[in-house]
């Protein structure tokens, strides 16, 4: 498989929705350590709303529109920090896709770059601030490198998922600078970032989706 086609996108969002439904309590617990425990709620709501949107009126739209609509749905359904950032990411990523009918590795590189940059701009966070950006940026970089190397979609998405997992692990060494976790300062060291965990799950689900589509 060389690319994800727009008619496959609803299936991808079904995966996202199912994953965040399944991780609801785990994310509540994770956010509860240095935050306000809402992340499991907001992410399950966010991706349920995104799925409903993409499965519904926009099942046949182009990929760019699907992604933007997913972003719009998330921004209404879950306007917390992560909800708003994920909404911004899908909106900007979708814009970068314009009216593309399919997403190949180069397209995914562009999508994730726009996604990560949108989040950085909206959240005014720097790399190393222990936020979702510290996982999103490595995902974008992985797809960019794979696109430059002309890698297959299956390979690229596996590499990106691995990069996300590593990046998430690396957030443990960082000290939170933003949001509710920042109040914990040094105490946040040793804990993986909650928002980064969400980004990692996105990369994982995307990869699992690609692998399943191949098989």
């Amino acid at each position, binding site marked *: 498989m060389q690319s994800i086609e727009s008619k496959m996108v609803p299936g991808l969002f079904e995966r996202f929705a199912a994953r965040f439904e399944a991780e609801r309590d785990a994310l509540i617990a994770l956010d509860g350590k240095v935050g*306000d*425990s809402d992340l499991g709620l907001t992410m399950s709501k966010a991706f349920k709303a995104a799925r409903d949107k993409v499965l519904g009126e926009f099942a046949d739209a182009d990929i760019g529109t699907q992604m933007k609509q997913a972003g719009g749905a998330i*921004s209404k359904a879950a306007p917390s*920090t992560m909800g708003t950032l994920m909404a911004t990411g899908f909106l900007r990523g979708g814009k970068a896709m314009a009216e593309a009918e399919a997403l190949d590795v180069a397209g995914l590189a562009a999508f994730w770059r726009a996604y990560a940059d949108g989040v950085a701009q909206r959240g005014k966070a720097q790399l190393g601030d222990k936020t979702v950006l510290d996982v999103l940026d490595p995902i974008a970089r992985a797809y960019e490198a794979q696109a430059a190397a002309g890698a297959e979609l299956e390979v690229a998405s596996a590499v990106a998922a691995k990069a996300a997992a590593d990046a998430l692990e690396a957030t443990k060494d960082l000290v939170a600078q933003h949001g509710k976790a920042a109040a914990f300062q040094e105490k946040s060291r040793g804990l993986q970032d909650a928002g980064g965990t969400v980004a990692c799950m996105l990369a994982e689900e995307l990869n699992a989706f690609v692998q399943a589509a191949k098989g």
Partner: protein
Amino acid sequence: MKKFLNKPEDFVDEMLEGIYCAHPEVTYTADDLRCYVTANPVPGKVGIVTGGGSGHLPTFLGFVGKNMLDGCGVGGVFQSPSADQLAEVTRYVDQGAGVLYVYGNYTGDIMNFDMASELVELDDIETATVTGNDDVASSVVGEEHKRRGVAGIFFLYKAAGAAAARMLPLAEVARITEKARSRTRTMGVALSACIVPEIGKPGFEIGEDEMEIGMGIHGEPGISRKKLAAADDVVDEMMERIFAETDYAKGDEVAILMNGLGGTPKEELYILYRRVAKLMDEMGVKIRHVWLGEFATSMEMAGFSISVLHLDNELEPLIAAKADTPFFSYFAK
């Protein structure tokens, strides 16, 4: 979880239905219960809009009313309203003189208010923003921009509302509100957690004899967790933090807000206030205004906060102005 509820997911909207039933002086716009606005906008007046998560009544929406706020975006429990909702509220509230956003310094809220202001720019509505960051415990001196907003935002609302009621222009209302912001400090302490209805269990654990000094209103940790001390000692420790960052001259005046977090009875707030008054008296500082009760809560959380606004000649009459909202009525004396 022991709460009077129907379905947990209906908590916010049913609360709003109850509020609209009880208080005809407020209503909603854009067919969205969560776009909460005054029923009586004042033509030509700068609109004051706030917004933030639910679970803090009377904050935030409770201060929409005469001489205070004009609209409020209502989020889920402890969650920001959406940018769309804030934009709708802004459009309703704008009476040609622009709109001031006054809300607490939380990432989710900042991003959504920023997005809203971009959206209403397309409608040629001018906005300005002041974000409350009164919580001394949430970051050190020099890093005040990282501090979160808590109960002290009440003083910003009071000043902004009274300034707008005088029909001052947006820039002036913003300047005055910004001044109130820079002169407001809050310290809080919590004794127990609260339960978000859709989560169903407490956000943190705290021992039967422990208190958390500086805890945030969503349960964010504070400066220290220790054995619950005598009321006077708790106040002393909190006020020391506030005094440490403010230069008071003899004869200076302050306004004080003694705020219960929800589960702490008024009886205790008065016992605590007694000590605050004593400390102020020892410093030669006059308490010109005091409000005591529940202003910014965390549902059933036990605990309280002390907010101090260092008055000056410009702020004092604004704080002293009468106000009348469904949740807060004050006769000017």
